């Protein structure tokens, strides 16, 4: 699974993207976030306010109960501020 981070998520985690092997126990965006937080303090900091973070699976916005699988591209980022 490819994971991308943008804006201050990227800065707090320290990488713009990474490839992970998705554990069998992880089936949703929420599950993935729980698993990431358990890995490292940087993630815990980046995901501290989970309710403000937006997730996109395969470049479509999804809610955090959305399913994920190992061949997905998933991105986490703060609310957008373009325009």
């Amino acid at each position, binding site marked *: 699974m490819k994971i*991308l981070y*943008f*804006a*201050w998520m*990227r800065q707090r985690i320290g990488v713009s993207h990474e490839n992970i092997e998705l554990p069998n126990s992880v089936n949703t965006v929420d599950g993935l976030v729980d698993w990431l937080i358990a890995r490292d303090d940087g993630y815990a900091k980046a995901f501290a306010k989970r309710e403000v973070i937006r997730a*996109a699976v395969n*470049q479509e*916005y999804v809610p955090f109960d959305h399913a994920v699988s190992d061949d997905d591209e998933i*991105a986490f*980022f*703060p*609310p*957008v*501020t*373009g*325009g």
Partner: protein
Amino acid sequence: MIRVQEEDFDIGAELAALTGGDISIGGVASFTGLVRDMAPIDGTDHNIKTMTLEHYPGMTEKKLAEIEAEANTRWPLAASLIIHRYGSLSPGDQIVFVACASAHRQAAFDACQFLMDWLKTDAPFWKLEDTDTGSVWVEARDSDDRAKSRWTDKPDTTS
């Protein structure tokens, strides 16, 4: 048409290309977003030295194309254009340009505003402002969510 690019753009040339030759067009509404010199941080205005626009290549183009397609289903547009820049910008620089051409002026105005409201909340761009007191990520504004929400209903296209 949508374009995501680092380089600047020429509004006169873009508008000429948009309408050129199509004499069924009665009006063109457009909006240009510029980098402002001041940013409110915790209630105080700070001078902006530079602004960096980060985006999500791939998803950005996809969302902008979806937004443009949606505008074209809602209003009878002869042509539409969204240009959004990324990278390092300075106060006064052009960030975004949206233009809608239609036989009718109200459709052109409404579609243009719709495109701006939607891209503000849906297009994956993030602004980092380098101010005189350090670098700050711009926070999303509730007013942008409210601006988008007014387009929930289908518009009246008869006027």
